[in-house]
């Protein structure tokens, strides 16, 4: 009995020691986290507190906390403005077109690359088509405006060569009907290769035995693509499709901002660039509160959409696992 007690004590002592040692080691791990905590606190969470200016009339004297509350004034003004529907329509047009035309191509590329007999050819194609992803938005738009220039641009020159009509001089960058096409096509050009990586990886997980036995059974390449390859990457396809659908209200501003000019503005102004224009643009009186309200509208709707599609994706992923 006595012996047992000392044993227990001994154990407890050891346990305490171990707990102490563990706490000490965690203390070091928390130290590793400090810079990240500071970063997320200052640059991600403090700005969230600044969202309140969307419900205030921000002025320099009052600052974020001292400016007067105005309720939903800025939201009401935005929904009643003519620009509201213009920017929402433009945003949706561009992102839906991007989804419809940009989504299938990476899948097709990955499927076809997977079937090439020459691995070296596949490697060359991959290396080249991933590359544009690393070109900056400034350079992409610079190339667009050089290629699409009315008189000197190569596209107009090629059109002149093909048709023999020397007077052709289309102002691509100034056209509102062509704007979404130019944006979406350049986006596809830049990212189709990079976006195919995920599918290529999924395809490399397909067991070669499946293909071998299908070949023995006399299946053609196309049959093997449709009955083996596509079904095996289907979960990846569906999940990416769902996630991309959740982002329809988010069109990145970096590139589209550079493509804007007074001629195409009615087709090129999207929510994110409109937020910038209201706060920093030369054409309007700077209004931080109004701008923050529009930004908040965008992020709340996007977040809701993402949560919804995330639920769907989870459900699908669960189902596909069974």
């Amino acid at each position: 009995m006595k012996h047992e007690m000392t044993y227990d004590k001994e154990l407890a002592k050891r346990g305490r020691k171990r707990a102490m040692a563990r706490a000490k080691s965690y203390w070091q791990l928390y130290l590793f986290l400090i810079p990240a905590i500071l970063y997320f606190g200052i640059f991600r969470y403090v700005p969230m507190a600044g969202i309140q200016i969307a419900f205030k009339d921000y002025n320099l004297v009052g600052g974020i906390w001292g400016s007067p509350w105005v309720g939903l004034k800025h939201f009401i003004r935005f929904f009643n403005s003519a620009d509201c529907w213009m920017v929402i329509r433009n945003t949706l047009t561009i992102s839906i077109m991007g989804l419809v035309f940009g989504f299938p191509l990476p899948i097709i590329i990955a499927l076809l690359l997977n079937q090439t007999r020459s691995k070296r050819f596949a490697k060359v194609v991959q290396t080249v088509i991933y590359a544009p992803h690393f070109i900056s938005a400034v350079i992409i738009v610079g190339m667009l405006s050089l290629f699409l220039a009315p008189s000197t641009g190569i596209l107009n020159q090629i059109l002149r060569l093909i048709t023999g009509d020397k007077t052709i001089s289309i102002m691509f960058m100034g056209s509102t009907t062509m704007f979404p096409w130019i944006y979406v096509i350049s986006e596809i050009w830049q990212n189709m290769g990079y976006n195919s990586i995920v599918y290529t990886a999924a395809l490399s997980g397909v067991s070669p035995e499946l293909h071998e036995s299908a070949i023995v059974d006399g299946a053609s390449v196309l049959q093997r693509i449709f009955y083996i390859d596509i079904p095996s990457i289907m979960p990846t396809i569906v999940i990416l499709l769902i996630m991309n659908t959740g982002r329809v209200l988010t069109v990145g501003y970096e590139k589209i901002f550079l493509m804007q000019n007074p001629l195409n503005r009615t087709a090129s102004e999207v929510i994110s660039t409109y937020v910038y224009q209201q706060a920093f643009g030369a054409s309007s009186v700077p209004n931080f509160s109004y701008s923050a309200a529009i930004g908040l509208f965008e992020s709340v709707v996007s977040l809701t959409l993402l949560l919804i599609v995330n639920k769907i994706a989870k459900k699908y992923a669960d189902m596909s696992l069974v």
Partner: protein
Amino acid sequence: MSANAASARAKTKAMHKREGSNLFHFCNYCFLGLILFIVAYPIYFVLIASFSDPAMVNSGQVLAIPKGITLEGYKAVFQDDAIMTGYKNSIIYTVTGVFFSTITTVLAAYSLSRRDLPLRPVFMMLIVFTMYFGGGMIPTYLVVQKLKMTGTMWSLIFPGMIVPYNLIVARTFFESSIPDELRESAQLDGCTEWQFFKEVAMPLSKAVIAMMILFYGVAQWNTYFNAMIYLGRYQAKYPLQLVLRNILIENQVSQEMLGDVYQAALQQERAGLIKYVSIIVSAAPLMILYPFVQKHFVKGVLIGSVKG
């Protein structure tokens, strides 16, 4: 014997089938070849246009090979103060940014990769949340302004220092490549967390460090937007992309670069040449480096997609 014969017959049949699908393979090569051409040609065209006589470029004579070869454009660009200062600034910002970003991301990712870390799910949730919701452009700007960072290089380093996606990629890497048993046995031998991190975990994690350096480096080198809002009138601090924006998109080719050309048409030609050259000069570092580091990017995408 007969089984062998059967499999041999099956093989011939398979070969036959493969022969029969030559049409498919022909079409496949054609399609991929076309994609290859569509992606590569615009880049190739910029390259040859940067060496060619701008008059011939503008009249459509330069399509396949450079014509009227000239180095005038390169001479003008390399002598231009704005571009050279932008280049220098971009190198400084990229090196500094990569330094801060990689260290903080790797440290935090390592810590969060530990399943036994108390409060780990809370930290992860707080980080992942920022991927989907944020204060937005204006409130962030006000914070940067309050910290008196506007107009300094720090406004380009700190507001985007840690990218949650990269953090998650690094964390996933640590989770899968540093076995718990290894650490436990090292700790039994009296190894502290820091020692284990430095002596064991880091040497095993060169790949993820390379990935982080590349992800952050490319992003920092390519971005212009933060510089545009935060640097304002401090032109001497502009990174290369912002200088390029002025040249390529705002069409502000400086008088020095145009040289002693005064005729409007000739000026326009020369401005075009300068633009082609600026694109090549500024994209060159990444394009030259790219083939050597491509595999790290691919790996990063794959780790990220497991999470997605």
